[in-house]
């Protein structure tokens, strides 16, 4: 018996088939729309994040699944995984970071251009995990500031996607002045950056 094959059984109306970001709050009338610059920049940034994977172990494998067609991180605008820190916005540290690797993570972070975000995926990157030992960095927040922590050992792809959505939330709501502020400067100073 031949296998029943059929395509496009469910007709989708064109307008719901295309994913469009929600319009930010604002005033509109005939031929104009007014909103805050913050909202527009945030909207553009949050839907075009370029992640830089820094994968050292099993969490990296979960990330590969996250990038694959089944979980498809591209749905959230992170289509393009860059392997060059200078063009990327989001540093994703996935896996155990040995103390000897610490300066490398920091160097990669320094090479990224502002604005930049960091997500620590998994127990090891967040806190050293089970490797409570002399050779492993007890969390990458000892060398770079971290925006979102994803718990799990390793976390499932859904959890990584959840982390990316939270990053998107942060990116979309971030004030344009934040990176010039005293508080941000103090944060970087506490890590000995600039």
């Amino acid at each position, binding site marked *: 018996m031949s296998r029943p094959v059929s395509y496009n059984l469910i007709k989708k109306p064109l307008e719901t088939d295309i994913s469009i970001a929600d319009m930010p709050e604002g005033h509109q009338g005939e031929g104009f729309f007014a909103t805050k610059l913050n909202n527009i920049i945030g909207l553009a940034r949050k839907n075009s994040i370029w992640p830089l994977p820094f994968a050292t172990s099993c969490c990296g494998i979960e990330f590969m699944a996250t990038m694959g067609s089944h979980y498809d991180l591209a749905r959230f605008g992170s289509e393009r995984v860059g392997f060059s820190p200078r063009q990327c916005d989001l540093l994703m540290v996935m896996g155990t970071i040995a103390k000897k690797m610490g300066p490398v993570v920091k160097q990669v972070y320094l090479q990224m251009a502002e604005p930049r975000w960091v997500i620590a995926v998994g127990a090891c990157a967040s806190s050293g995990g089970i490797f409570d030992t002399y*050779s492993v960095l007890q969390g990458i927040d000892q060398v770079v500031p971290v925006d979102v922590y994803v*718990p799990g050992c390793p976390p499932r792809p859904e959890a990584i996607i959840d982390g990316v959505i939270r990053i998107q939330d942060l990116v979309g709501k971030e004030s344009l002045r934040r990176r010039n502020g005293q508080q941000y400067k103090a944060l970087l100073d506490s890590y000995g950056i600039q």
Partner: protein
Amino acid sequence: MTLTNEHIKQRLVEKFGEQVSGFEEPYGMLTFEAPKEMNLKVLNFLFDEEELKFRFMTDLCGAHFPGNNGKELAVVYHLHNLVDNFRIRFKVFTDINKPDVYTASGLFSAANWMERETYDFYGVNFVGHPKLKRILNVDEMDYFPMRKKFTLEDQTRIDKDDEMFGRG
């Protein structure tokens, strides 16, 4: 002629007399020790002697025996005769307060990195080594992590977030 443990032992005792000691054969592998000042003499003898020809160093490592007063640190050489496919193990012991042992890197190039590793983890000072610095750990480390003076992790410590590991 194939080598035997008895033959090697006999040759060593002929050459060094009382100074080589502690002969044993765990799992059939000849193991012995010598004073640390003698290590190069013994290694050279085993290397040069036409019958013995232990010209390949499989491994060099350290060990720490905290109760062994005056002989706390051991340096263990694993040697291999590739012609007769025969292996032996040779140990020297040193005081932890003065852990100076002559380097074998002049004789075996393989000893170079392995002595650096032994220095890194046990703090054995290999006299005459061309570049004795840490090889695996961070340079800033100011202790020798494999020495048995560190207690196990305190299970009640709270500086880690237990919820992340299901330990809570």
